[in-house]
């Protein structure tokens, strides 16, 4: 207990960095996934080629390798030094963005063709079709996979201590070398990571229910706050080579 009282502020600082990296990486990944995923559904071959190359490249290389490249090789190549935190967000965003782009592409392609035909009959522009008809339906299908990706992203942030960022994992190691109590020092970090993941799971599930309601679908497993607490289903680590 005394240990906790003394060290909790440091854990909180570390966890705060982890949260920042998760949010930053998720924001970048989301923008990339949407933009590049939508490109992959257009009729221009060069746009689809961009999607394929981007997806295969950043899905194929581990985020840690990309991060090392940005932190160590990039300054050598260009003379610009990147802030490690920026480099970390960039690497994580590119990696998860590549998985996400594939999810977006697949979800858009899964919208029934009759829906698209209807927008043509109504003389909608491409923008109207996407915004009003295709994306709201694809969105509901993307969300569960996005939920898994966010958790994978949060877990992936732990590698940043290798490039000198003081995140939750780094704090655990510092406290361990200061106190010599390996089990407790890491145990607290494990519990904090677990709690973070649970918060993310609840948040994503709330989004899923909302997206389902907008389409007139009932939330799975009954409505209300309690439905959010049903046993988690974060089963599949997603997206690899669909």
């Amino acid at each position, binding site marked *: 207990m005394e240990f906790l009282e003394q060290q909790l502020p440091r854990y909180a600082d570390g966890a705060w960095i982890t949260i920042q990296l998760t949010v930053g990486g998720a924001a970048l990944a989301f923008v990339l996934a949407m933009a590049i995923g939508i490109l992959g559904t257009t009729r221009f071959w060069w746009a689809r080629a961009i999607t394929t190359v981007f997806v*295969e*490249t950043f*899905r*194929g*290389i*581990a985020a*840690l*390798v*990309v991060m*090392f*490249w940005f932190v*160590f*090789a990039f300054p*050598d*190549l260009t003379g610009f030094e990147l802030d490690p935190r920026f480099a970390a967000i960039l690497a994580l965003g590119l990696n998860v963005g590549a998985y996400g782009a594939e999810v977006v592409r697949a979800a858009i392609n899964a919208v029934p063709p009759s829906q698209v035909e209807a927008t043509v009959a109504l003389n909608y522009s491409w923008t109207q079709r996407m915004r009003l008809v295709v994306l709201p339906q694809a969105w509901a299908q993307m969300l569960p996979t996005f939920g898994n990706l966010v*958790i994978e992203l949060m*877990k*992936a*942030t*732990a*590698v940043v*201590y*290798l490039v000198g960022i003081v995140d939750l*994992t780094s704090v*655990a*190691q510092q406290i*361990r070398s200061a106190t010599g109590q*390996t*089990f407790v020092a*890491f145990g607290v*970090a*494990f519990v904090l*990571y*677990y709690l973070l*993941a*649970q918060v993310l799971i609840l948040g994503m599930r709330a989004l899923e229910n909302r997206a389902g309601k907008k389409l007139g679908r009932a939330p799975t497993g009954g409505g209300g706050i309690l439905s959010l607490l049903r046993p*988690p289903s*974060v*089963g*599949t*680590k997603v997206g*690899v*080579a669909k």
Partner: protein
Amino acid sequence: MWDFQFTYEAMPDLLSGILTTIQLTLIGYSIALVLGLLVAVVRRTPIIGGIVHFVMEFIRTTPLIIQVVFVFLMTPADISAFTVGVVVLGVHYAAYTAEVYRSGIEGVAKGQWEAARALSLSTGRTWGAIVLPQAIRKVIPALGNYLISMFKDTPLLFAIGVTELLTQAQRVGSESFRVVEAYTLVGFLFLAVSVPSAIIIRRLEKRYAAV
């Protein structure tokens, strides 16, 4: 700009790194396949199943790298980093493969269980001859995806000093100050393995998913 001489000289080191990476992946994956199946079966028992489920959920929602470092520090010094790395990798991924097996087992029709019961097959025969062959066949592509995922997670073992690809690249890069070449080559080597494997998995998917 690009130093081809260095590329040529660094290749043997990098290739020995990727060999370690592939060893780690294959051994770790075997552990994940076997342990995951055990977990998926045990999870169906009342109390122990609940405990196992929680432990696996915990493993799945916390970062692999901190698990690796933690186990490395907690085990006696005479156990090599390679062993620790491969076991933690295997156990971590067992948490994922268990879910895959579970979905496969749940997909087996109820009538199959009832038929096994009607023929008064033992529990072992029911699982071994009726349920698992059907369940596993369906999830082969999903399992294959984790092989690629795991391959891409092996650089994390850099943290405990296993001499895999990234560790080798860092070593040759810092010895020669050719950092750009070293890390770029790592990227290409990763692509050289993961893109062909992705294509193979896609083939498997076509072959098995249709059944």
